[in-house]
């Protein structure tokens, strides 16, 4: 087999941890290298994933059909009520619209759709060519908002204007316009908003249940199982807790600046981080010690049920090696710890959108020889899976076939998952899924494990 080299333009985005190496000088937070087959999407994707779970809002994609078609009902973000977010709306621009402008079509589409579906708000996503043909979508939004009496919010998410992270920002800008427009009456002191939790497979419900059990009021989840009216009054909460740090820290910071609401960064994956997410909130409300007592009781109950279950898996998973490639680096931290709790090591840790601090943190956590990579691609991921002899790859849909072609296990930790992986029960599901894939007898037929090719 010929040796796979790292592209010249990417060599500063790939490192292997070595002793005495010092801090990483990794290049990250840049646009992807042309022709590198990045696993990233675009600005639009960033906005779309953040706002998607707002279930009673109209999400209309302004542009040709592709962007709306590829994002129709693709996430596992579930709703306890309305499901307008699972529809796909597009202005479906044609050549004539591109030449003469799409404002009229956008206006007409908005009015018709608002009349038909009676949403609580509307998000208008601009796609690549909107930035070029010069549609004034802000003006259209203002007009329709006035006429229909609901927030109609432009999301400036032209695909080429930055990276997925810029899309997160555009989504936060749109949300910030909704925050603060509702009444905060009746919201108590011991209250939080859950940010950066998208209720994939009902994960937000698990987290919400934990906090409520501790005696904490959850005002809004943003955006999992999201409702416009909850977001409107979310400035009444005392604390923001932010998961998936990349996507919604901006909103938390803005809410802190404007409404004086402090925020905490948390993760709900793995025993350690999940427990910390509960304890940190309890510490914040230290004037009411019952909250900490409840948190301790909850963690004790959950962990004592979970621990023996995990030991059963540990027996067989111990010593297996995992490669992790995820969207946000923050998740990778949790996954490394979670895998560690069943004795698995990590041979590759990478993300699409991590920053320098993230990668430095990963380097510190990992063993010598672990590959740290930013904005990777199928060729590199395959190279490292082979070279490091990984038994498992954790990623999303685009990473899955790499694992299966090479004959190793795979765990989907992305937006499409259908089984909750957050919280204590999620930890059980996660390890069970890892176990089911890594220990499957089908790999005996894989050529790399001695099967015929």
């Amino acid at each position: 087999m010929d040796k796979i080299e790292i592209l010249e333009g990417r060599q500063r985005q790939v490192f292997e941890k070595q002793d005495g190496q010092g801090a990483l000088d990794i290049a990250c937070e840049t646009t992807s290298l042309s022709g590198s087959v990045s696993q990233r999407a675009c600005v639009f994707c960033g906005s779309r994933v953040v706002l998607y779970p707002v279930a009673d809002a109209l999400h209309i994609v302004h542009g040709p059909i592709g962007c709306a078609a590829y994002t129709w009902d693709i996430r596992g973000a579930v709703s306890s009520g309305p499901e307008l977010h699972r529809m796909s709306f597009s202005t479906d621009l044609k050549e004539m619209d591109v030449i003469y402008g799409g404002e009229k079509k956008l206006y007409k589409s908005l009015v018709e759709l608002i009349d038909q579906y009676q949403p609580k708000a509307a998000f208008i996503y601009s796609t690549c060519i909107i930035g070029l043909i010069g549609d004034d979508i802000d003006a259209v939004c203002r007009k329709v908002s006035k006429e229909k009496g609901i927030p109609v919010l432009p999301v400036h998410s032209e695909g080429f204007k930055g990276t997925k992270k810029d899309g997160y920002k555009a989504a936060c800008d749109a949300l910030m316009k909704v925050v603060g427009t509702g009444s905060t009456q009746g919201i108590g002191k011991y209250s939080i908003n859950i940010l950066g939790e998208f209720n994939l497979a009902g994960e937000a419900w698990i987290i919400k249940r934990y906090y409520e059990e501790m005696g904490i009021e959850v005002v809004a989840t943003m955006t999992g199982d999201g409702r416009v009216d909850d977001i409107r009054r979310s400035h009444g909460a005392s604390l923001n807790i932010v998961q998936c740090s990349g996507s919604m820290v901006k909103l938390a910071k803005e809410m802190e600046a404007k409404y004086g609401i402090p925020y905490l960064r948390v993760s709900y994956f793995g025993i350690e981080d999940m427990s910390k997410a509960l304890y940190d909130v309890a510490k914040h409300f230290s004037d009411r010690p019952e909250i900490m007592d409840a948190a301790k009781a909850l963690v004790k109950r959950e962990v004592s049920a979970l621990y023996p279950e995990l030991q059963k898996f540990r027996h067989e998973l111990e010593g297996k090696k995992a490669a992790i490639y995820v969207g946000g680096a923050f998740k990778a931290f949790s996954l490394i710890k979670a895998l560690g709790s069943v004795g698995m090591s990590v041979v590759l840790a990478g993300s699409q959108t991590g920053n320098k601090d993230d990668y430095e943190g990963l380097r510190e956590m990992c063993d010598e020889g672990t590959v740290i990579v930013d904005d990777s691609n199928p060729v590199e991921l395959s190279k490292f899976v082979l070279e490091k002899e990984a038994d498992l790859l954790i990623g999303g849909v685009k990473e899955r076939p790499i694992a299966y072609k090479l004959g190793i296990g795979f765990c989907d930790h992305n937006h499409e998952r259908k089984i909750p992986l957050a919280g204590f029960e999620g930890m059980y599901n996660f390890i069970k899924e890892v176990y089911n894939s890594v220990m499957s007898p089908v790999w005996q037929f894989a050529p790399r494990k001695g099967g015929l090719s």
Partner: protein
Amino acid sequence: MKTAKAATQNACKLCNPLGACLAFRGIEKCVPFLHGSQGCATYIRRYLISHFKEPVDIASSNFNEDTAVFGGSHNLKLGLKNVTQQYRPEVIGIATTCLSETIGDDVDMILRDYVRLFENGEPLPNGEPLPLMVHASTPSYQGTHIDGFHAAVRASVAKLAEEGPKQNLLNLFPNMVSPADIRYLKEVMQSFGLPAVILPDYSETLDGGPWAEYHRIPKGGTPVKAIRNTATAAGSIEFTSVLPASKSAGGYLESEFGVPRYELPLPIGIKQSDRFFALLEKLSETPLPENYEDERRRLVDAYADGHKYIFGKKAIVYGEEDLVISIAAFLAEIGIVPVLCASGGKSGKMKKRLLELVPDLEEKGGSVREGVDFVDIEEEAKVLEPDLLIGNSKGFKMSRKHTIPMVRIGFPIHDRFGGQRLHHLGYRGTQELFDRIVNTVIEERQASSPIGYTYM
């Protein structure tokens, strides 16, 4: 409830570049390359992977704000270089997007400039000759994914076909069919002793075996040499009902090289399959091989065995126009009424072509609608109350909401396993479709009966 007319709701189509990427995946040692934003490539990869369950690497020139203002030349060239270095392809299939088309990039000129760079002394990537570059224009504000598919096939032939002495060779442009269908067609050609070029051929690249080592580009695909030979063939068979010769590969070969073009609807159902096999008998001067005769006989027998379960049932069929036309014609010959034949495509020819195949379609209660989305189809379904939905996975919402049993065909199959291995074409494909349709009806009868029959 009034259906919105300006907006598209739950589209029954995808965008132009997706089809191009799929077609390019069917050329040997070819990497598809989208000239536009990173998102296009990633979304399309995700969409294709979810159906085929295979790696689908698509490169992107990764536009940023500067690119959009100053043009995509720099990014395209850099991207081509990087793809060449990383994948060592023989062909790069470049398709444009709405972005690069709107800023007016002259891709052909950029490609000429790129080649000149190396002629003027720039070191070649990997020190090897440059890969061939095929360019298809596929702006997403025109047409649908099927147009991109045909554009890429035509562009490949236009770029590669070379004049030469006529050969005992047949070109087959099968349209957007499954890997299993392509394998079947190869087998058919072989059985007739007909040397054939099938383009595209993603039967292995998108439904291949496990890897002992890493493959930069999966094995399989139509070889470049074979595409070169298409100009020397004795004829081209093109499965389509609505594609004009001016946009097809067969049309190109006919007008440029005088290769006769035989246009047939996708061979689904006995009548359309008969037409295909009759044409092969004629072109090969060989009678229908015994095994296909057998397949046909078993199919006729199955029609008899199953006819009562399905007669008079009403079906809504949706998807690409060519597929819908042939499925509807098949349904008509087994006694199912295609009460709505719907497509997100809009050729303007769908009804006319379908009436040619099924003259009494409308008298029997059938109807045809182009340019519709799933909300339009659902509105129709409420009135038509069909017994079956036949089409891709995206009809599932409607199927669930209105409890209409569904038979999954075509692309994408995102909610079932093995979509890439479904047969649709010829006697064998028809047999499989017929069995599945009959079983869907039987399953419904069995499930809705309080008795719990163990025989049906």
